[in-house]
């Protein structure tokens, strides 16, 4: 580590990776803004969600359930968003030692702890480049995401009849896109199929929002008993793509197209991988 040149190089490449991921993610905030307005929320509500909630999967879940069930589906919408947000808490356990600093700095760090900032940070080779990767990515995504949310909301309002423009299909495609990078294991694929079937079968029976929550129980059951999982293997990193454990640095942006993208396992469970 007595190599200041290498130190600087890692530092710069972490910053570059963070900015690239920030740009890629920002483009996608437009779809959230437009879909949120199409779901019946106004521009202020849409921007508030991106500012405070700031987690793509949870945001799409919230507006998706509200679009289907209106305010009556509020409790289910809140539960869905919160459940999808639990993985950020797991990320925080890993990123807390990286960011350091006092309580205010840690609050700011928690705010921007999402798939992208965690993935870029954990993929860096040195403590300093990990810290740089975390903050640059988190801040770049935060600024870009909120600006494009506003732009998307304005576009959504201008469109008017959103169904004619296929925005309901766009929302479905967005969920598929968030899910896609996570389907690397047999267990993950089985859970996804089972959850989708349960949710569709229950849709005519339960009020909007609840079928999604019941489907989540499928995951809890399979996860607790580790059905279809690898016996006594290392615990999967949330959203981890095992095939990425030998990823070269920096994280290629195409691994992280969107919030909710798979978290590369490099630097996280490498010590336990065989």
């Amino acid at each position: 580590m007595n190599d200041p040149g290498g130190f600087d190089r890692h530092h710069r490449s972490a910053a570059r990776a963070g900015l690239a991921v920030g740009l890629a993610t920002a483009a996608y905030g437009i779809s959230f803004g437009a879909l949120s307005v199409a779901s019946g929320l106004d521009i202020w509500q849409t921007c508030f969600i991106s500012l405070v909630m700031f987690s793509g999967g949870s945001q799409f879940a919230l507006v998706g359930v509200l679009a289907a069930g209106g305010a009556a589906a509020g409790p289910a919408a809140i539960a869905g968003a919160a459940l999808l947000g639990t993985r950020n808490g797991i990320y925080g356990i890993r990123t807390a030692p990286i960011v350091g600093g006092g309580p205010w700095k840690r609050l700011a760090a928690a705010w921007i702890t999402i798939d992208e900032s965690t993935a870029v940070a954990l993929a860096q080779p040195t403590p300093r480049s990990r810290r740089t990767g975390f903050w640059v990515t988190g801040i770049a995504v935060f600024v870009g995401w909120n600006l494009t949310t506003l732009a998307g909301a304005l576009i959504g309002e201008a469109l008017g009849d959103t169904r004619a423009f296929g925005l309901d299909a766009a929302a479905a495609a967005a969920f598929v896109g968030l899910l896609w990078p996570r389907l690397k294991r047999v267990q993950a694929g089985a859970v996804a199929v089972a959850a989708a079937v349960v949710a569709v079968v229950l849709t005519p029976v339960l009020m909007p929002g609840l079928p999604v929550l019941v489907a989540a129980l499928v995951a809890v059951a399979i996860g607790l008993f580790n059905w279809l999982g690898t016996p006594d293997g290392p615990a999967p990193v949330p959203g981890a793509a095992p095939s990425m454990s030998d990823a070269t640095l920096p994280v290629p942006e195409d691994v992280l197209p969107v919030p909710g993208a798979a978290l590369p396992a490099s630097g996280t469970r490498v010590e336990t991988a065989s």
Partner: protein
Amino acid sequence: MTFWQIIILASIAVLALKVAGYLVPPSLLEKPAAARVADLLTIALLAALAAVQTFGAGEEIVVDARVPAVVVAIALFALRVPFILVVIAAAGVAAGIRALS
């Protein structure tokens, strides 16, 4: 509940979960089941939301222009087409089918 109350509660809940990660002891991660459940929970929720968004209309199941749009989206994701382009393509397929039918 009003939309604003729902939005504020949900936003605070998601933010609080992030903060909680900075407050809990790291030993929580030693339990493989906890990390595994959190991982699979995300997958199940996203899959269920995708399915309901594709087939649901309130409390009914409806097969319409969304289905071919999502099939196209899955194919494009498999081809590693960037997220935003896939979402736009899906909207285009559904809009095109609706305009023609």
